[in-house]
């Protein structure tokens, strides 16, 4: 029973399947298998993929599988989902196997992005598991001839009061779980949780610390060959000529693949591909046409680009007026995801069927892009997610998958593995876009904010596939696909305007999103999108205003915030840090504070930091950070802490060191020398993360919640240490030294 779930077959069966279901289910869920469109939808991703067996499968031998359309990217949610499924099904943690995104096996959950995995997929698995448990109880009640209320579940079995027991595997039959989820589930009382809420060790770590096959880079298919691509030297460069004859004579070379400006070489062994790639690159001549903006003047470049302006928030109370007005402009450069492992993919074309193993964040949209590029039906392409190096958004993963697909088409029957070189990942990944914010506020006589104006200029923050035109390989073809028109991402999540609307309450406020369609550099989604810079700006400016009002920064925030859960994390972080009103840091040290609720509807996070600044060199050093986070019901507290610790350190690296560099034509930050990031000498002494658990509340996610608050907290601590305000990211040693000496 329950063979591999083929979602296409399932959707075809939807009508007829319901009959089987109503026959086999007794009265549990039989009443209404085709709810009217207006009916309330089940929660999370069950709303889009309502069949329970798309999420939970139980085989006759009792083995249990949970499915997610989300991709494990190193956040650890495979373990969290396993906890959720085990908890709601009443089975041991180890009884569950979790299958992650695969276009043949799992639901289409779009992209693994926006800190939405727990909310979308975790919620779906939780509710599906609870409803499956109810179905199993109903089936057991029928077989025992007892009422369902008298039955209990434990250890993967339904147990009758007289001690009779039926295992889940024995109970499940036919298409019993192929039913649509009900809008409401009988979820467990969180007070009775024994697996959810526990710091269960991550299931993927043992393999990763012993040399197990853990990453796509570790996959070896029988007969697999290796490929490397030769990328143009700059955006839009045209391949004028190349000498493949010499390259084809090199050891191991099987094929040189060229289509327009797409150039790749296939070899028997991997290092042969690297050498052949270098030979091919030096034998190719290109016409370079790119005109990149002036990197040093990126703020004025951004402000000069045409924009589409939308007022996204207004608040008006004429009775409130201020006396002192303050203004500030904050900027963010282009920044790189900088995955430690360059992107990699394996593709295998067998007759008309193409399989691509990829570390994409979205197997379905990426499949759509690849199918369009190859001009084949999407159904003939299967994408299977395999973990790669952490991506932190849209890095080179989707492009590498397209590269592999294109090369595999030229190598029918042979699995082709492509891995990018370091300089290719650095130069060709889609960067986090440069941004500018202008803030203006008025303080009233009581030191409260009477008027708040926030303007943000930004590109979109997602140029992810869906269409082929988003992929490098497709853009490089002789018959190229053109880049789709960029679109602003809609609120409430937003893109460039993510977190642009303040959570604080001001009597008068106006927020304008200046969306810039033109993209001088290749850009897309990077962890937290616009929220990183918007929160940096809002929370820096709040500190500037607090200082002007002569108020304590923590007190000043609380004064403007009604949100109770927001207030709780602020108070918790301040208390655990030892924040004191009127405090004074030791010489050359400073304290900083910042807060945000990610997207204004996801997790709450407040971060206090202590910074040391070397006055001679300007070098800033994060000494310690204390964070408080409220992510709703906690599933795995250690996993949540790990995410916040990581967010603080990565955001610190962005904030203190990182900007993509380029000259008039080429990207020049192409490795770790030219794009330096955090190293161990700058790691703080201590990071403490305190969780405010909210039993039974919705999962709020955590992956991106720390990026903005960490940046602003550090910036505020630098100001506290030096008396100078820095508003242009990154806050480098050189800029700090300049500010101190100014």
């Amino acid at each position, binding site marked *: 029973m329950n063979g591999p779930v083929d979602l296409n077959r399932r959707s075809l069966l939807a009508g007829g399947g319901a009959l089987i279901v109503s026959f086999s289910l007794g009265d549990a869920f039989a009443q209404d298998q085709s709810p009217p469109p207006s009916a309330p939808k089940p929660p999370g991703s069950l709303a889009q993929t309502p069949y329970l067996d798309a999420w939970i499968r139980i085989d006759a031998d009792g083995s249990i599988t949970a499915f997610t359309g989300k991709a494990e990217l190193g956040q650890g949610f495979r373990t969290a989902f396993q906890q959720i499924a085990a908890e709601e099904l009443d089975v041991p943690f180890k009884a569950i196997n979790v299958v992650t995104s695969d276009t043949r096996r799992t639901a289409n959950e779009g992209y693994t992005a926006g800190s939405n995995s727990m909310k979308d997929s975790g919620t779906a698995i939780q509710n599906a598991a609870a409803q499956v448990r109810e179905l199993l109880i109903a089936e057991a009640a029928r077989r025992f001839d007892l009422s369902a209320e008298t039955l209990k579940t434990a250890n993967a079995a339904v147990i009758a009061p007289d001690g009779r027991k039926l295992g889940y595997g024995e109970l499940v039959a036919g298409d019993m779980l192929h039913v649509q989820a009900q809008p409401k589930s009988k979820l467990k009382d969180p007070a009775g949780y024994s697996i959810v809420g526990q710091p269960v060790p991550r299931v993927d770590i043992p393999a990763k610390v012993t040399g197990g096959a853990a990453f796509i880079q570790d996959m070896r298919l029988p007969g697999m060959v290796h490929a490397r691509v030769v990328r143009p030297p700059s955006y839009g460069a045209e391949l004028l000529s190349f000498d493949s004859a010499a390259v084809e004579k090199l050891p191991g070379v099987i094929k040189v693949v060229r289509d327009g400006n797409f150039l790749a070489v296939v070899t028997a062994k991997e290092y042969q591909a690297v050498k052949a790639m270098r030979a091919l690159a030096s034998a190719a001549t290109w016409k370079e046409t790119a005109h990149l903006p002036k990197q040093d003047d990126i703020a004025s470049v951004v402000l000069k680009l045409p924009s589409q302006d939308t007022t996204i928030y207004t608040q008006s109370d004429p009775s409130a007026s201020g006396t002192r007005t303050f203004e500030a402009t904050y900027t963010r450069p282009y920044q790189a995801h900088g*995955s430690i492992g360059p992107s990699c993919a394996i593709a295998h074309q067998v007759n008309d069927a193409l399989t691509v193993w990829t570390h994409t964040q979205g197997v379905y949209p990426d499949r759509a892009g690849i199918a369009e590029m190859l001009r084949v039906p999407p159904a003939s392409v299967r994408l299977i997610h395999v973990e790669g190096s952490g991506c932190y958004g849209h890095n080179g993963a989707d492009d590498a998958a397209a590269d592999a697909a294109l090369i595999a088409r030229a190598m029918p029957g042979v699995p082709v593995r492509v891995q990018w070189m370091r300089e290719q990942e650095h130069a060709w990944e889609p960067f986090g876009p440069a941004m500018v914010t202008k803030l203006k506020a008025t303080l009233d006589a009581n030191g409260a904010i009477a008027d708040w104006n926030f303007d943000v200029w930004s590109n979109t923050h997602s140029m992810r596939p869906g269409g082929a035109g988003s992929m490098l390989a497709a853009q490089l073809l002789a018959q190229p696909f053109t880049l789709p028109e960029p679109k602003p991402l809609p609120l409430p999540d937003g893109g460039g305007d993510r977190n642009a609307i303040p959570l604080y309450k001001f009597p008068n406020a106006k927020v304008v999103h200046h969306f810039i369609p033109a993209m001088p550099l290749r850009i897309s989604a990077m962890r937290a999108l616009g929220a990183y810079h918007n929160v940096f700006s809002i929370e820096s400016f709040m500190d500037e205003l607090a200082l002007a009002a002569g108020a304590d920064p923590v007190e000043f925030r609380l004064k403007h915030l009604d949100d109770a859960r927001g207030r709780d994390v602020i108070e918790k972080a301040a208390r655990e840090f030892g924040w004191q009103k009127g405090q004074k840091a030791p010489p050359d040290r400073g304290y900083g504070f910042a807060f945000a609720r990610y997207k204004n509807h996801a997790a709450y996070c407040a971060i206090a930091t202590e910074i040391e600044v070397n006055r001679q060199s300007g070098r800033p050093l994060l000494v310690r950070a204390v964070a408080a986070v409220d992510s709703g019901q906690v599933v795995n507290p250690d996993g949540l802490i790990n995410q916040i610790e990581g967010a603080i350190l990565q955001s610190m690296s962005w904030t203190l060191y990182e900007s993509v560099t380029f000259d008039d034509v080429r990207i020049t930050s192409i490795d770790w020398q030219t794009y330096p990031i955090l190293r161990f000498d700058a790691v703080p002494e201590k990071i403490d993360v305190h969780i405010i658990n909210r039993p039974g509340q919705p999962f709020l996610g955590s992956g991106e919640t720390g990026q903005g608050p960490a940046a602003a907290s550090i910036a505020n601590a630098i100001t506290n240490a030096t008396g100078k305000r820095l508003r242009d990211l990154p806050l480098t040693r050189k800029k700090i030294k300049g500010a101190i000496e100014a």
Partner: protein
Amino acid sequence: MMTLKVNGQDHQVDADPDTPLLYVLREDLKLNAAKFGCGLGQCGACTVIVDGKAVLSCVTPVMLLEGRKVTTLEGLGSVEAPAPIQRAFIEEQAAQCGYCIAGMMMRAQALLARNSKPTEAEIRSELQLNLCRCGTHMRILRAVHRASKLMQTADASPAPRSTP
């Protein structure tokens, strides 16, 4: 054809002499732990131990390794019988994506082999070359301290975290 001694075993390897050790380990010997990160010796993801010293396998031609002893993470222990450093990284849950971790562990292992009780400063200085992008640094540091303790006590008590 050359003989390469890896994790205590001799392997006959047929690779061009200029092939970096990393490619031979991964492709010819099918060992997963050492990772390609940059190919430039800038990130440490490829770190292995050669004759007791941490070496960047992505920039070390295989021809230099005839007669030397190469150790990779696979040579230290296994999931079933983890070495102290592997136990320590599991117990501290010292990974996010985990791509950099094998390199971190090998560099730390080389340090612990010559200095069984390194100070915090010595650990940081040793790991300076290795990059982690997820921001797992605090846990990595804790794991190296824990490994140092485990190696000294040969503590065989089970990990404090249990699976329900």
